[in-house]
């Protein structure tokens, strides 16, 4: 079998090896770099998407938290407002009740006083009439004749007034 020299450059082998190198480059590019890089890009995209999702979830959670805090604050404010208004209402009501009671008491007192005065007047009138009658009778008996009541009404009244003062 024919044998090459140990150190030599065969032109066609040289050309073939250049072609081989570029074919090899294409093959490596096509069968190693292209699929692996495509896969790495896909993974990177996935990781980016996951990070973005996590950030979104975080901001959502933050929003929910701040909303919750705002709600809590509002509820607290409302509660204290309700408490304050209830206290105010209670105070006003108690005051009202007291006022009403005192007014009622005053009214009752006034009515009682009125009643008393009326009763007193009534009693005085009765007594006046009785005493007038009695006086008339006595005078009639003393004088022996009828005294016209009408004529002496003024006299009698004076008398009674005196009696009243005395009594």
């Amino acid at each position, binding site marked *: *079998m*024919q*044998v*090459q*020299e*140990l*150190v*030599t*450059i*065969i*032109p*066609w*082998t*040289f*050309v*073939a*090896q*250049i072609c*081989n*190198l570029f*074919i*090899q*480059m*294409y*093959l*490596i*590019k096509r*069968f*190693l*770099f292209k*699929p*692996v*890089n*495509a*896969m*790495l890009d*896909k*993974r990177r995209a*996935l990781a980016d998407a996951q990070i973005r999702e996590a950030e979104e979830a975080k901001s959502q959670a933050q929003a929910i938290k701040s909303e919750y805090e705002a709600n809590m604050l509002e509820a607290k404010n409302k509660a204290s407002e309700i408490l304050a208004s209830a206290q105010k209402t209670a105070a006003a009501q108690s005051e009202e009740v007291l006022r009403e009671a005192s007014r009622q008491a005053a009214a009752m007192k006034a009515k009682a006083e009125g009643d008393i005065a009326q009763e007193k007047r009534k009693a005085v009138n009765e007594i006046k009439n009785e005493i007038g009658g009695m006086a008339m009778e006595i005078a009639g008996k003393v004088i022996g004749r009828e005294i016209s009541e009408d004529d002496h009404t003024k006299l009698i009244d004076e008398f009674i007034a005196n009696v009243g003062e005395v009594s």
Partner: protein
Amino acid sequence: MNVDITGAKVFFTIPTGIPVMGDILISETLVVSWIVMILITGLCIWLTRDLKVENISKRQAVAEMLVEMANNFVIGNMGEKFRHMIPFVAALFTTSVVSNLISLIGLRSPTTDLSTEAAWAVVVFIMITSQKIKAGGIGGYLKGFTQPIPVLTPFNVLSELATPVSMACRHFGNILSGVVINGLLYAALAVASSALFGLLPGVLGDVLAQIPFLSVGVPAVLSVYFDWFSGVMQAFIFCMLTVMYIANAAEG
């Protein structure tokens, strides 16, 4: 005893009749080159079979690691703008490594033929020159030879041409030296073995003297250096120089 260390065997000769180029020789170099290419491509296809985004297999991890290594090597040494060079450098490195190591399975590695390294070095040299022309224009490129003084022009031309020659010869010389030393060593061990076992008396000595027992084991030690270390190292050096020269050329 004669030790004969020759070049690659020639299987066929295809006559072309072209004066300078000569005949096409389908030699061991070419055949083993094709085997190397098939091996590398097969390995690539096998490594990138059913790639997954998550929960990756060990095979895929290796594929990713190789791609990352190639990316880091090229981009780390040349910069981001040479991203398109990654497949070329990767092809150069893997072809070189696999060619060097294929001698371990008994084939003659294509890198023991200077044509192979010369081809690679010329491709790299064309890339270097095109980068220089791209960076400084043809005028700038030619003017570069007269720097720092015009007297140095012949030396500059010489040093420019020395780049591919040194790259090719460095790689070729290292691999060939391994082949030569291994050839000598096997021959020497065969002689030593037959001398040693020839001392045995009678027919036993005659039979055992024919078998080179010493060839088992001892060459493996040298193979660690000449095949494994030198093979990987030369591939790395070749790629490193390629990357460095092209990156320097682009800087102007």
